[in-house]
């Protein structure tokens, strides 16, 4: 078979695996959070049922072409983020299209989904959507700063922007992980991961109690089902990216599952322990200490490597 067709088939399979893992991970963490609160919580497979129910809604209201395209952009952002990251280093099935893109392209896709969503939510005409959009983009601009700085530090350290090469440089024992060779970059990156995942204290954008649910206010039925599907894919794509950049990547599928789960638990631990920041507080937070840590990471990488 044509190798590119085979690659596409493998990429589709790995995307399907990621989608399922994302939905199940959402269910597991919701259940863990519920146990922390002393209750039982939703079933682990509730994510599937919600998406199926939304697809089977009989009517939906569209507000125009951009409204229709908003979730499509979001899913494109999520899938695009994942497609250029090698999920499992050395595996043929899970290496996606890693040869065609690098870290900068992946960072672009992370931002792209939110922008498309902003345009779509804006066309819905709902004033709460507009507020949610402005908050979300403001916060996103803020947490991109420490993230970009840590990526620059990695580029200076490993002299490459290709994710596969960065993962390859971290093989050979866990002392070679970026976590131990350049801890500043990892700290700055993980703090910006907290902002990316939008749990407390940075959840003011999409928490259901906050100006109803932010950008997805007017989205329902199949639009919302698309957004929920994307949330599962996008979550795992971000976790896999961070795993590859900072924690040595994964060579087996169990390694990937365990590492992404542990990384997500960091977000959840912080999420259940803190209340919410306002948007101006979170912007100020990101532009202070994490930015300084990111700068320290760059200086450290240049001096040492």
């Amino acid at each position: 078979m044509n190798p590119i067709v085979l690659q596409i088939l493998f990429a589709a399979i790995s995307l399907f695996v990621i989608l399922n893992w994302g939905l199940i991970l959402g269910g597991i963490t919701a259940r863990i959070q519920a146990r922390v609160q002393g209750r039982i919580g939703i079933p682990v497979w509730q994510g599937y049922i919600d998406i199926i129910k939304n697809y089977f809604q009989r009517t939906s209201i569209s507000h125009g072409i951009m409204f229709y395209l908003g979730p499509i952009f979001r899913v494109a952002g999520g899938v695009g983020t994942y497609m250029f990251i090698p999920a499992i280093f050395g595996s043929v099935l899970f290496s996606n299209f890693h040869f065609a893109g690098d870290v900068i392209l992946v960072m672009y896709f992370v931002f792209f989904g939110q922008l498309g969503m902003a345009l779509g939510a804006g066309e819905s005409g709902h004033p709460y959507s507009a507020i949610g959009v402005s908050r979300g983009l403001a916060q996103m601009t803020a947490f991109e700063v420490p993230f970009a700085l840590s990526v620059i530090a990695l580029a200076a350290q490993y002299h490459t922007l290709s994710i596969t090469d960065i993962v390859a440089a971290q093989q050979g024992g866990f002392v070679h992980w970026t976590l131990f060779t350049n801890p500043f970059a990892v700290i700055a990156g993980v703090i910006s991961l907290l902002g990316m995942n939008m749990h407390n204290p940075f959840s003011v954008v999409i928490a259901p109690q906050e100006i109803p649910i932010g950008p997805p206010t007017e989205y329902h039925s199949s639009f919302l089902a698309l957004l929920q599907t994307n949330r599962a894919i996008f979550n795992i794509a971000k976790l896999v990216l961070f795993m590859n950049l900072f924690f040595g990547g994964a060579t087996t599928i169990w390694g990937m599952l365990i590492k992404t789960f542990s990384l997500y638990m960091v977000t959840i631990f912080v999420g259940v322990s803190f209340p919410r920041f306002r948007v101006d507080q979170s912007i100020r937070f990101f532009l202070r200490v994490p930015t300084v840590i990111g700068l320290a990471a760059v200086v450290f990488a240049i001096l040492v490597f």
Partner: protein
Amino acid sequence: MSEAKIVRPDEREDKVGDGREAVGRAIRLANLDLPEADRELYCDARPQAVKPYNGILEKFANWARANSLWILGFGTGCGAIELRPLMTSRFDMYRYGIQPRPTPRQSGVFIIGGYASVKTLKRIVRSYEQMQNPKFVLALGSCTINGGMYWDSYNTINRLDHYIPVDVYIAGCMPRPEALIAGFNKLKEIIRAGKGEGANKYAENFDWYKANQKKVIRDWNMPDYNW
């Protein structure tokens, strides 16, 4: 999934051509006096009944709808006080798949908690009409059944099902969370049996419901159908 209707304001089936002005004046549309630019803010469409799927697909869809009930987070009356213990650790409605959502666009179950004053009824109608087909209504308390404690009041309605279609009544004043969970289980049975067609019933008897609503809601400053 391909049968979901996407309705755009300028693509309705009942759109009249150039004679809109004349027709509008004849039946007194709510948006007639507005300048042209604002007219589409006030729609004049009617709800349409949507035929359910056939056979196993509808059974599967009903199973999904029954196990993922998204309630609208709008506490309309004193019944809302019983929703809080329902959500928290002791009674935990989340394990039944019931989750609250903040907007009527995304929710499928509307819980009318207790008495509905005329002022609240206007907002209930407005929120109910923004929900998507299929939608279900759970009426708590005796005030929705026969007026309850406020049966002789000048400001509260006596029978909720004359204004919006109701699926399950839960008697009590206020029913405890255990009674609410029993009501939700009954609602799930109704949905699985394919009988949760409140939205279609509303569309089919739209004129009757609207006449009843307009009889009590005197200052009608919104479209006839708030989709």
